[in-house]
């Protein structure tokens, strides 16, 4: 199973049969659901020949020789554009460093949760797909002669290798734990994202959840969720009523307040799936007396996601520029990103490289939340959060941006001493939730199985292992604090998949919900699983 064999016509390139064991009580038979069977229609129409998973809906198997030739031609032209400074100006430098200098020491493999969880499957090594690209480029540039083969260009560039590579780039969370450990500082996560660009930007191939249901929808409606300006305003009105019912106090959510100090922007998925999170921000910011606002501009002021950074520079640039323009138009002093990891990185790191107009200070919510707590005008009582708590570190702002301590200082203030426990490892050495780079929202075919059983396996193992003393006691709540919309989605799915909430009372939510739950001015608990049934919804 070597990179050069990727074009060989086998029914399935590899078979997963020895996943890494899970810790107790999940080491018992029957505790883990089996893989869903592969359907014949998936095999015929898409690419199921890599590892038996299908995730990329637009990666369709061509039905005629002409279509096949066309697909190969486009792939090759995309590869040329990717590796040219004229057409890939923003990324060519880090791309070429990783492309040219890898010593293939495989240190990165040991750092990859997907490689490890899969039981050491060769194709999931971080360097595997980079090596495929290297071989293809060499072969394409120099032909298939003996010297090229000797130098490493010994791969068949055919429909099978291209299709398999198109799936393989969606077997990496882009968490960049491999880049962190590389002795040469090379970034195979970046390489994966760059290869995704060949498929998306040149061939029009990307998972629907990222493209049509993601960036395209966001540019058309204002949000990848499809929330329009009218729907956003309807939600805010509803949230104000909801808040009044819960707190007995009338909070007015500031919308489109010109010249405010802060424009708060959330992942719009929060409004739909976890409305407690934006509600908690309203309470905290209002109680702190901040001069803040949210923005209802439908291009694009109320959704901080930018799925373009996972697969397509052109989409990423358009979205990033629109978000900055919305803030500029309002004349706010700075943007504060809510609890969304990928938005943190997209807006604060990636956009510096690919969209340089309309610069506006862009900051994380976590240091601000800590400042508010340190200078608070309200009382908090940690005993209101009296259950074991662990925290998940979202890769995008922890490993990639170094925001590690504020969350922990906050937790120490709002959770009783002795209840907080770290995962192993944690901080910048954390493992991805398994939902990174779009996986949390990719649910077609049997891709969920790949996410829940392999990509998220390490995280699930870490969660269980964080509560060795209490995991098997369903009377004790165990709280996984996951301050990121995408991670929350992936963690919600594993807790459901492995029935960890149902069987062992493992709960999850963000960080700000814990803060509000500790505020003594409210009689009722804020966390949804502590509320009485009639207050649940």
């Amino acid at each position: 199973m070597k990179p050069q064999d990727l074009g060989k016509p086998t029914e399935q390139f590899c078979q997963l049969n020895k996943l890494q064991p899970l810790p107790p009580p999940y080491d018992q038979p029957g505790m883990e659901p089996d893989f869903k069977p592969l359907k014949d229609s998936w095999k015929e129409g898409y690419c199921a020949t890599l590892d038996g998973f299908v995730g990329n809906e637009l990666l369709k198997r061509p039905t005629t020789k002409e279509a096949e030739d066309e697909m190969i031609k486009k792939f090759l032209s995309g590869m040329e554009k990717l590796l040219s400074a004229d057409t890939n100006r923003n990324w060519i430098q880090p791309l070429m460093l990783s492309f040219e200098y890898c010593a293939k020491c495989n240190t990165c493999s040991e750092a990859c949760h997907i490689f490890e969880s899969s039981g050491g499957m060769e194709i999931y090594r971080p360097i595997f797909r980079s090596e495929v690209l290297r071989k293809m480029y060499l072969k394409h540039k120099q032909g298939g002669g003996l010297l090229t083969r000797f130098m490493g260009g010994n791969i068949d560039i055919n429909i099978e290798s291209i299709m398999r590579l198109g799936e393989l780039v969606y077997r990496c969370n882009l968490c960049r734990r491999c880049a962190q450990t590389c002795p040469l500082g090379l970034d195979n996560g970046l390489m994966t994202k760059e290869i995704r660009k060949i498929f998306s930007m040149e061939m029009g191939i990307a998972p629907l959840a990222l493209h049509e249901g993601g960036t395209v929808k966001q540019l058309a409606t204002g949000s990848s969720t499809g929330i329009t300006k009218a729907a956003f305003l309807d939600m805010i009105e509803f949230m104000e009523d909801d808040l009044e019912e819960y707190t007995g106090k009338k909070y007015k959510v500031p919308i489109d307040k010109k010249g405010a100090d802060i424009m708060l922007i959330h992942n719009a998925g929060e409004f739909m799936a976890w409305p407690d999170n934006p509600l908690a921000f309203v309470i905290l910011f209002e109680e702190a007396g901040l001069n803040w606002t949210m923005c209802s501009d439908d291009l694009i002021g109320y959704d901080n996601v930018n799925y373009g950074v996972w697969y397509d520079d052109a989409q990423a640039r358009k979205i990033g520029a629109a978000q900055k323009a919305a803030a500029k138009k309002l004349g706010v002093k700075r943007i504060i990103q809510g609890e969304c990891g990928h938005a943190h990185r997209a807006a604060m790191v990636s956009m510096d490289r690919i969209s340089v107009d309309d610069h506006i200070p862009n900051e994380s919510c976590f240091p601000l939340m800590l400042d508010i707590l340190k200078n608070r005008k309200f009382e908090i009582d940690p005993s209101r959060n009296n259950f074991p708590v662990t925290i998940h570190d979202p890769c995008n702002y922890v490993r990639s941006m170094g925001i590690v301590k504020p969350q922990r200082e906050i937790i120490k203030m709002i959770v009783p001493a002795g209840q907080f426990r770290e995962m192993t490892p944690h901080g910048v050495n954390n493992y991805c939730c398994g939902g990174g780079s779009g996986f949390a929202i990719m649910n077609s075919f049997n891709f969920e199985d790949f996410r829940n059983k392999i990509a998220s396996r390490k995280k699930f193992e870490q969660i269980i292992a964080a509560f060795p003393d209490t995991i098997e006691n369903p009377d004790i709540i165990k709280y996984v604090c996951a301050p990121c919309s995408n991670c929350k989605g992936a963690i919600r799915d594993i807790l459901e998949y492995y029935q960890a909430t149902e069987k062992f009372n493992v709960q999850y939510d963000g960080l700000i919900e814990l803060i509000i739950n500790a505020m003594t001015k409210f009689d009722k608990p804020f966390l949804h699983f502590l509320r009485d049934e009639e207050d649940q919804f």
Partner: protein
Amino acid sequence: MPHIEVDGQQIEVDEDGFLITIDNWNEGVAHYFMKEEGIEELTEEHWKLINYLRDYFFQFGIAPMIRKLCKESGFNLKKVYQLFPSGPAKGACKLAGLPKPTGCV
């Protein structure tokens, strides 16, 4: 794209069985999905949720927040799950002909 057959008509659905366009919905579609959902009969309570979802979708272009759905219908989430075992998104929205939810939800 896969299809479902309702009253002799072929209707396009996505890989998860959601309608591609809400315009193709009719009561027959709800009855078709009902069987997949394991619902024996669509009661007045089911229709109350389905109609609310459709009205909201036509007004705003998306499904309502789950909490709003509960509040406006007077059914708590537990009750929604009793009516639609796969839940509000995968169950109720599908029967109402709404497209699959997108974004980080």
